[in-house]
């Protein structure tokens, strides 16, 4: 279980000036500005939860993650993960977590992936039978077969990411931190990674904390979202509830034959081509059932689709509303 209470962190950054005179002045004296990375951040994550940690760049996501990994100490506040304080009990804490940094690899570059795995096994002191079992499972689930004999530098990004994820799970961590795991991946790899993570969470009960800018990751994986902006937690809730809270507006796509009647008020046309109309309707004013009824009286409906707001739209709205 993860308990984060009132975490705060301020960084001091040196100001760099441009121009010749400013550079000479800076040579003699240095000015700094304060950046409030985290301000009173608190949340609790139960075992086996899968949480999406989202927010714009610079909001404080990686700062929080670093603290939970034990890499950074806060100015104020507490954090307990499985009963331990990450930055104080580093070695013990780190044995139980796995981390995947999206852009930095933990594999040795010039040797086959399996050599990296073997060394990681030694570093984490995983006993042989357990290692073999994990390796077999991960190879099967992530389709690593051929990749194991290839040096990391020869792998494509999608292949490497699958190996990275496997590498971080060799020691059976209870908590997995994923920092932008699908960034730069092609569609097929993204789906593979998402399916794997979902399965991992369901079958092994691994707690997963995912930071991402890809809203489809959020849609596919997480039931819960933490939104952070300017160092503060702005939202904490279930995805579907948040969607409802932010917007009930439904998008209705209608394929029809015949002539389209003028739309009732509170129904907005988004896209109209011959035989197809995409509209937005707010169910508070005009229910979807009413809308279908209305159209079936004027045209012959050949196909119909109703969709809620996408996670992407919702997050864009959130950012707008919170000015982040």
């Amino acid at each position, binding site marked *: 279980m993860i308990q984060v209470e009132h975490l705060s962190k301020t*960084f*001091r950054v040196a100001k760099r000036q441009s121009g010749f005179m400013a550079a000479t002045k800076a040579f003699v004296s240095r000015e700094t500005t304060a950046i409030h990375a985290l301000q009173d951040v608190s949340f609790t994550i139960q075992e086996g939860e899968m949480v999406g940690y989202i927010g714009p760049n610079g909001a404080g996501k990686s*700062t929080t993650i*670093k603290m939970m*990994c*034990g*890499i*950074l*100490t806060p100015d104020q506040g507490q954090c307990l993960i499985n009963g331990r304080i990450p*930055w104080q009990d*580093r*070695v*013990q804490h*780190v*044995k139980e*977590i796995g*981390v995947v*940094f999206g852009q*930095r690899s*933990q594999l*040795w*570059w*010039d*040797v086959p992936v399996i*050599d*990296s795995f*073997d*060394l990681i096994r*030694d*570093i*984490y*002191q995983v006993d042989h039978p357990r290692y073999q079992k994990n390796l077999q499972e991960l190879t099967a689930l992530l389709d690593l077969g051929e990749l194991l004999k290839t040096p990391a530098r020869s792998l494509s990004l999608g292949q490497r990411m699958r190996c990275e994820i496997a590498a971080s799970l060799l020691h059976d961590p209870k908590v997995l931190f994923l920092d932008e795991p699908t960034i730069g991946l092609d569609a097929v790899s993204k789906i593979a990674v998402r399916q794997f993570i979902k399965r991992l969470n369901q079958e092994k009960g691994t707690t997963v904390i995912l930071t991402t800018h890809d809203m489809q990751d959020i849609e596919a994986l997480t039931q819960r979202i933490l939104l952070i902006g300017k160092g503060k937690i702005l939202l904490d809730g279930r995805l579907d509830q948040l969607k409802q809270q932010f917007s009930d507006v439904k998008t209705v796509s209608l394929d029809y034959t015949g002539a389209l009647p003028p739309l009732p008020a509170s129904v907005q046309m988004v896209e109209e081509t011959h035989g197809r109309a995409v509209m937005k309707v707010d169910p508070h004013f005009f229910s979807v059932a009413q809308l279908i009824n209305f159209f079936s009286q004027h045209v012959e409906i050949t196909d119909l689709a109703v969709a809620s707001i996408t996670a992407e739209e919702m997050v864009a709205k959130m950012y707008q509303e919170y000015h982040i």
Partner: protein
Amino acid sequence: MVYWHYFCIHLKSQLQYKVSFIFTALGQFLGSLTAFLGIWFMFTRFHQVNGFRFEEVLLCFATVLLSYSMAECFGRGFDLFPQMISNGEFDRALVRPRSLIFQVLASKMEFSRIGRLLQAVLVFFYVIPRSGVNWHLGTIVTLCLMIICGSIFFSLLFLVYAAISFFTIQGLEFMNIFTDGAREFGRYPFSIYGKQVLRILTYVVPMAWFQYYPFLYLIGQRTNPLWIASPLVCLVFAVPAIWFWRVGLKNYVSTGS
């Protein structure tokens, strides 16, 4: 043991780049060769300095060279530590359940340093029969201790270098005075540089304990067998070095990268 596993992975990794390996080793060899030539040229003119003959001076030169190249080979992780911080590799080390000093040490091993090592060995081959040293158990142990303690000492200097890089990446050149400096100026017995320098190198940065004092025992200027253990004194430097590393680590963990 985990360290052996790291060793194998580095070896495997570097042997892939055979050409680069050979060239770097060659360059190293040439670099130390020119240092040797410099000394030789001076001695064709002067024949001795401060009472030390050419072969005796070569003993100092080869010891320092060998110690330094071994430290470079195995302690390179600390030498390249600033890179480890800036590319995030150190964060990865923080997330692994092993001692940090160990991980940094194990993160880099550069076998191409074998070039300098080879030069040192060659000089040793030349000088050992000619140096006029009485080679018995005592002097042999002394020489071994000089080399081993020298390597450890240089690695400790690299450790301090890495610790400084926790605070600033720019001021690191300062440390080169001691690492590169020791290698360069260690080619002559430290007494050549005068009393002041010798004093600093005895009490502040205790290099003279593995290069000069046991050397005097080797060439017979000191006869008390206690001098055989003198190289061990320089290991005292480990205390401030490790302390400084800890301070740096604490600072890093509280200010981020």
